């Protein structure tokens, strides 16, 4: 923290309408979702409206941050804040996944054995993983690890490498490498998503297939959503690169996205091991 001694330089943004717009967006989105859940026809429309407001807010909000950045208002101290902020945000995401991994772990190690113990209620239930539970008489084949999932692991890992390669390019002022690296990363991310969608379509079970289906789809589904989000963020970054943003020693926006991408990568590795493989 070299610049740490001048807090007068810390940029305090003027009053902003984006937060309140964001609150309105979430209220609309949540309201619409509730209507949708309770099977009211207006639901999807209200949700769409909420999502539109939300996107409007995100574009506006990030737009002003980017403009402030380009105007050189965000000094080293603010940059440091952004870094810390991103680190803790990713930590909170880790804990969110932690909840679902916890559910998977608990169900396999505690729930199923104790259901198998309750022979009085569930005669003949063995409790072996994978399982759809004692009450669901459905035959299903679990997802095999060494087909698409293994390929997807490879794809995501190489996308982690390409984004790092792009970062090197940025740091050494080789903008071409930066651009190619980013585009490759996005393409790999999209390939991953396409394969994932294919896997879903081919799956021999659904989210209703007991605890196996539930943990499988929730974990991979939320991961897929994060990949999608990451890909959108990468796209935004790429546009900014083409617009000439970022300098070799000041490019927090880029780094934030790449951190996020690495986080998504690591979650996938855990998924591969605990959801598909073991």
């Amino acid at each position, binding site marked *: 923290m070299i610049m740490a001694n001048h807090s007068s330089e810390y940029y305090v943004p003027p009053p902003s309408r984006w937060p309140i717009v964001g609150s309105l967006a979430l209220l609309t989105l949540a309201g619409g979702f509730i209507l949708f859940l309770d099977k009211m026809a207006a639901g999807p429309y209200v949700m769409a409206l909420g999502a539109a407001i939300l996107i409007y807010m995100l574009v506006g909000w990030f737009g002003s941050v980017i403009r402030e950045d380009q105007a050189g208002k965000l000094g080293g101290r603010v940059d440091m804040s952004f870094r810390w902020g991103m680190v803790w945000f990713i930590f909170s995401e880790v804990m969110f996944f932690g909840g679902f991994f916890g559910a998977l772990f608990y169900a396999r190690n505690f729930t199923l054995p*104790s*259901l198998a113990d309750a022979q*009085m*209620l569930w005669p003949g239930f063995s409790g072996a993983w994978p399982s759809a539970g004692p009450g669901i008489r459905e035959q299903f084949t679990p997802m095999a690890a060494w087909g698409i999932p293994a390929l997807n692991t490879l794809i995501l890992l190489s996308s982690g490498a390409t984004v790092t390669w792009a970062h090197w390019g940025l740091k050494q002022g080789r903008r071409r490498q930066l651009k190619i690296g980013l585009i490759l990363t996005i393409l790999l991310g999209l390939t991953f998503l396409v394969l994932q969608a294919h896997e879903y379509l081919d799956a021999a079970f659904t989210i209703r297939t007991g605890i196996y289906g539930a943990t499988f789809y929730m974990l991979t589904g939320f991961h897929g959503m994060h990949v999608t989000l990451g890909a959108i963020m990468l796209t935004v970054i790429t546009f900014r690169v083409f617009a000439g943003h970022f300098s070799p020693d000041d490019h927090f926006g880029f780094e934030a996205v790449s951190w996020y991408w690495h986080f998504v990568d690591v979650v996938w590795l855990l998924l591969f091991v605990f959801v598909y493989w073991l």
Partner: protein
Amino acid sequence: MRLKEPTTTRPALLAAGLLLSLPALAEYRFPLNLQPPVTIIGHRIYDLSTTINWICFGIFLVVFIPMFYALWRHRKSIGHEAHHVHEHPLLETLWTIVPFLVLIGIAIPTTAVVVEMKDTSKPDMTIKVTGRQWKWEYEYLGEDVKFLSNLATPREQISNQAPKGEHYLLEVDKPLVVPTDRKVRLVFTAEDVIHAWWVPALGVKQDAIPGFIRDSWFKVDLPGTYRGQCAELCGVDHAYMPIVVEAVPPDKFAIWMNDQKTRLAEARAAASKEYALPELVAMGQKVYQANCVACHQANGQGLPPAFPPLDGSKVVTGPVEGHLTVVFNGRPGTAMQAFGKQLSDVDIAAVITYERNSWNNKTGIAVQPREILAFRESQAQKVAAGK
């Protein structure tokens, strides 16, 4: 000081006497500790609780006598100057270690009780307890005796239209009967949501969890009637789900058990009888009071939208088949339970007839127990055929 002055001693003695009798008085009107236990575990818990409360009281004095002394002695209004000491390593170490040691002292005897409490091995008998919204079902495993236990307090007492009885809310139509001096193991499960079976005097509280089996045990020292309540929020009538355990000497228990078995046989015989309409309605009203009022209310109006009215319901006034299906199988995913598993054929016939001929429902149709039996068999066949 003139201590012997009679005029001051006498009131003082009187006051002391009053003060001393106060706890007794308080105990009478205002119980201050756990209910008197009647099992080993109950006694252990009682003693543990008393000890720990005294320890806490002791620590409280140790901490707060100095504090109040400081507040009084070191107050600014008498010109006390602050003495600036902000660290005292020895003291700080002490007040970290001593509480730790106290905790170890508490943990050792407690651990022994936990281990003893959880030891459900080698029971003399096992009873399966099933929690349902909002009643308990008891099944004496290996004896083919099984019954429901419902709140017996009349609704008028709850709504303040009648004076409340002595055991208001803690009384049931059929208590759980157990022998004294026998190790009784209970296995718990539930049908719909989580309930908790709790009888303070026995020192047993255990959640009954749908789809899972949990167990606990007790061995009652003294014959008597012990009362408790469901202790896990389980919906609207969570407050109205009491537990009554009647502990009787083993010989009396054997008699009771035989009696149950003969009654069961009688009930089976009764199912083949033909009943008149008024007879069924009268019996049905009792069944309704015990099993249905909670949701559908005495006036048949229900509590919409959660619980639909039966008065004027198309299902109730429509074909018997449809009506019977709802009552028998419930409506999955709603609070409406499958009463086919809970009630006897006679009861179901009676309650359905009651519903069809009460309030504004005037179908005049009497549904006979044998119709229920036929329905039960057809259902069983469907299940066997895989739906």
